[in-house]
């Protein structure tokens, strides 16, 4: 499984996004990553779910950056 990372920034916003994804039956977990700003919280999830997850998160008004895929 290829894993994608959606960098959100705030841990609270990441928690809100994770809950919204869970409601949409998309599994994710919160990680902390180094970023240009210093450090950020992000969601890690199955890349196959990325497009659907992006729609859910945008729908609740949270911005994110797709920073990497492993």
């Amino acid at each position: 499984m290829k894993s994608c990372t959606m960098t959100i920034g705030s841990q609270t916003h990441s928690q809100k996004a994770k809950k919204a994804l869970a409601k949409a039956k998309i599994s994710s977990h919160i990680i902390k990553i180094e970023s240009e700003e210093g450090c950020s919280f992000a969601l890690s999830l199955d890349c196959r779910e990325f497009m659907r997850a992006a729609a859910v998160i945008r729908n609740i008004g949270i911005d994110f950056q797709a920073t990497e895929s492993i």
Partner: protein
Amino acid sequence: MIYFDNAATSYPKPRAVIRETVRTIKKCGGNPGRGSHILSMRAADKIYECRELLCDFFSFDKPENVIFTPNATYALNLAIKTKIKKGSHVLISDMEHNSVLRPVSAACEDAGAEYGVFTTLSPLSSIKRKLRDNTDIIICNHVSNVSARKQDIAEIGRLCRERGIYFIVDASQSAGHTEIDMTGCNINALCAPAHKGLMGIQGAGFVILNSADGLDEFMQGGSGVNSSSVKMPVFLPDRYEAGTLFTPAIAALGRGVSFVKSIGLSEIEWQERILTEKAAEMLKSIDKVRVFSEGVGTLSFVSEKMPVSKVAEILMKNGICCRAGLHCAPLAHKALGTYPTGSVRLSFGYFNKHRELNVLWQALKEIKNG
């Protein structure tokens, strides 16, 4: 021992709250918002759960806009000092606690702003008389900590919305006692402590902001994110939550809110109303005693026969905990005509029993006889 000082802090705490506090210390001991390891995430989950519970409880929909603070005073300072600007004109009520009066006075002096006081006997007409073109903030406590006088925050909120005025509500004495609809009342900043009506423990409070637009930074420090910048993050709650949060007190608050919901506000209000009315009736039957009972849960009285400190001493001798003096609310005592000596305050909570009023009556006989 009989505890009639619930306006200062509720006591005892529900067993579930005590269990939650201990469990959080034992099982969720990481630093929330700092790492993504299991102990940090457990702590963060407790905090997020509490944000959601508070939103649900106060009819608001953005958990990220719940800012945790060490107490209600800090929350009020945050709401007040991030909003007052040079040229601001602020209106506060005549029942405000020093947690509003002092930060407003200091912020106005620092910023070059002014403030005025409106009367809570006829608040809308008083506010309208005192409004200026530059009035941009109204601050009001929902329920007085001296006499339980309650303000119609829906009406004041409507007026604020119509005039584009920022509305700050101090819910220290009402949160957990009576319903508050933050959205319906057009409240911009709702402040309250964890440890009073919401049944949490001391060490936590919160402000719920409807938006951070136009608000200044308040305190700087570590936020766990954007660490390269010398500025605080712009987004909520991180913008106003510098430093490590007090996870056990926040978890306890969450459990306290759940407890209050499980009992129901109407049940709590009803119990407190009966106790307040009966106590007021007893006090009014005593000659030379003036009673200030204007709502639910809290009342004050003064005896012409002895000073308030002596009355409190007699009550304590009979095992009754109460509070005498100005209750950090000199404005309220001026409004009630009990300044500068203050009053004796009795404040009831959900756990008080009706039979405890019999002990009060026995103690009052001593006061009655001078």
